[in-house]
């Protein structure tokens, strides 16, 4: 019993310690303080991605402070309130309220769609503009909130992108589509199927697993009998890896393709040799394709390369600052209209928003597994497919 109490005390102490560390620093010197929030998971399985996102936003804020940005003729000092939502929807709403109470004038985040969507009504009620650099679920900007933006593409643009790449580059006659029966997996699989049918490609009846399925052999054996030229799976890497491995074990020769959930280097660990040659898509562009100025600055400041979405959160934070500069005010009500009609060229290219707050002409990137790493091979922008090298050349200009 004493041990339990001790353990509890330690846990509480640790939790308090953690809170203390993350508490925002107040009392900025020189000029009025303008608080910009950032939310992403800083603990848990994808903490590294959360930190990467935070770094992007932090870099933008620090650069603005160094450059001595004036808003409405007055000196200001930006501070970044970095919060941890643990990728948990419940914590996400708590943290959102915390930022509202702390009088943040704009928020970059959240990282996950699952936390962004429940948090969005809270920001909306407070009238604070929110720009996500990584939430791709279409629902986020379909709620009619005027203050919700994102600088990455949407899942429903991703399905058509990978499907059209598959159709035009691999020319399959028969495709099998599998999903994991989650909102994400089913959603992207539906989009892929629609695009394939539109391209007059035959699609087999949908096969479904769950997000915990480890044994795909029954489904794959059945598909093998029908001999599809390509297989698309809408789901995460934890289930996609075993699926790919088992497919190859059964001697399937089809091209395996995946959405962003299974577009990670982890596929190599999970599927081994079988991962070689898989196709997958991601919303946005790989961090290596961001502007050189950003990449150099990030490397110099954090002593590492950006992992995934840092260029997008960097742009998101810069968009907030830019809109404030244009409006001459850091009052959310005043600068929100400027944000809606902004035309800004950032680390990820030109950014303009449509009526919903989605980025116009968002890019999608197609990857393949080569030598145990996923490598970008093509970028799809406004329905046009460009090879990756070509795209990088246009970005470097």
């Amino acid at each position, binding site marked *: 019993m004493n041990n339990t109490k001790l353990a509890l005390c330690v846990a509480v102490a640790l939790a308090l310690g953690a809170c203390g560390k993350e508490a925002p620093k107040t009392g900025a010197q020189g000029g009025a303080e303008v608080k910009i929030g950032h939310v992403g998971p800083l603990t*848990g*399985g994808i903490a590294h991605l959360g930190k990467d996102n935070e770094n992007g936003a932090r870099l933008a804020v620090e650069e603005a402070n160094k450059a001595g940005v004036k808003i409405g003729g007055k000196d200001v000092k930006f501070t970044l309130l970095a919060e941890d939502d643990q990728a948990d929807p419940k914590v996400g709403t708590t943290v959102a309220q915390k930022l509202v109470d702390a009088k943040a004038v704009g928020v970059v985040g959240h990282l996950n769609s699952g936390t962004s969507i429940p948090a969005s009504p809270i920001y909306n009620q407070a009238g604070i503009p929110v720009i996500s650099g990584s939430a791709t679920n279409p629902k986020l900007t379909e709620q009619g909130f005027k203050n919700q933006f994102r600088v990455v593409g949407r899942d429903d643009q991703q399905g058509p992108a990978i499907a059209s790449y598959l159709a035009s580059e691999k020319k399959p006659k028969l495709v099998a589509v599998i999903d994991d*029966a989650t909102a994400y997996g089913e959603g992207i699989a539906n989009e892929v199927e629609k695009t394939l049918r539109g391209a007059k490609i*035959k699609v087999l*009846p*949908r*096969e*479904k*697993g*769950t997000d*915990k*399925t*480890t*044994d795909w*052999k*029954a*489904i794959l*054996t*059945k598909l*093998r*009998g029908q001999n599809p030229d390509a297989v698309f799976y809408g789901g995460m*890497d*934890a289930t996609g*890896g*075993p699926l790919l*491995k*088992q497919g190859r*074990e*059964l*001697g399937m020769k089809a091209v395996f393709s995946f959405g962003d959930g299974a577009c990670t280097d*982890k596929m190599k*660990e*999970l*599927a*081994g*040799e079988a991962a070689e040659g898989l196709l997958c898509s991601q919303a946005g562009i790989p961090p290596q394709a961001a502007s050189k100025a950003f990449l150099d600055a990030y490397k110099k400041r954090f002593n590492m390369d950006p992992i995934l979405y840092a260029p997008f959160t960097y742009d998101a934070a810069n968009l907030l600052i830019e809109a404030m500069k244009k409006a001459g005010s850091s009052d959310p009500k005043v600068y929100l209209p400027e944000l809606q009609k902004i035309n800004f060229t950032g680390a990820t290219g030109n950014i303009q928003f449509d009526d919903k707050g989605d980025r116009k002409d968002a890019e999608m990137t197609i990857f393949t597994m080569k030598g145990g790493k996923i490598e970008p091979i093509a970028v799809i922008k406004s329905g046009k497919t460009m090879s990756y090298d070509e795209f990088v050349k246009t970005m470097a200009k």
Partner: protein
Amino acid sequence: MDTFLQQVINGLTAGSVYAVVALGYTMVYGIIQLINFAHGEVVMIGAMVAFTVINALVPYGLPPLTIVLIGTACAIPVCMLVGYAMERLAYRPLRHAPRLAPLITAIGVSIILQHLALLIWSRNVLAFPQIIVSRTYLIGGAAISTVQVAILAICFGMMAALAILVYRTPLGTAMRATAQNPQVAGLMGVDINRVIAATFLIGAALGAVAGVLFGTYYGIAQYTMGSILGLKAFSAAVLGGIGNIPGAMLGGVLLGIVEALGAGYIGDLTNLCAYDTLAPRIADCAGGGNFVLFGSNYQDVFAFIVLILVLVFRPSGLLGERVGERA
């Protein structure tokens, strides 16, 4: 035909793993009438320990088979320790309590073990290092890999060894005696506590091996893997007749095959567009579309349909004894 054969091979492989796990349930139930719901977690811990050891050994460049064997050799004692601790700390103090108490304790132990594993190995899906290069052979159009052959051989080998242990050795005789009547067995000089502890140890050792087999076959391990595997193995034990050792073996293999065939064919059978009388009435069927009532995502449901059917029509299982004898 090759599809059918392939499904049977798939089912047989998965089923033999279920069978080995089911043995752990059935042995414990046979002796103390306790459904040890934490057994699935023992299997998970076996896989996790093996994962850690194998991962640590890979850089030393030992032969892959040696590494996996060392991993298994480490997983077995750890699982036996967990099994023994579980019996000693959680179940023995409750041996004379009402039946519900140890059952609830078993669920509690399962939750504790799962969360301990979460603390140690994180919530991520761990990728088992793919060091064993698996060769695939074609038999009548069906692919069977060396890993599958090894799993079948190991599982059936272990089952045979267990059968010999139970039916041919003094310990086995003591176990069967304790199962029939603990009091009388005690009076005959059988140390019941030792026999029960031995049962848990053997079950845990089998579970550890099953965990390693599962991990190497599917290439993944996660802290939650024990719950669904445990439930299926439990269904297999009930299917064969809980408390009955050959029954658990039969139940596991049958369940694996039923699951594979079910998942493989239910989609075709319930595709309403495939039936000429129905097809014209369903809008989705137009132009080669499909309307599938139950897809292959119902795979996991088969284990539980089987469980319910058995409980309704043959509560004592396929090879089970009449429950009345024991009362």
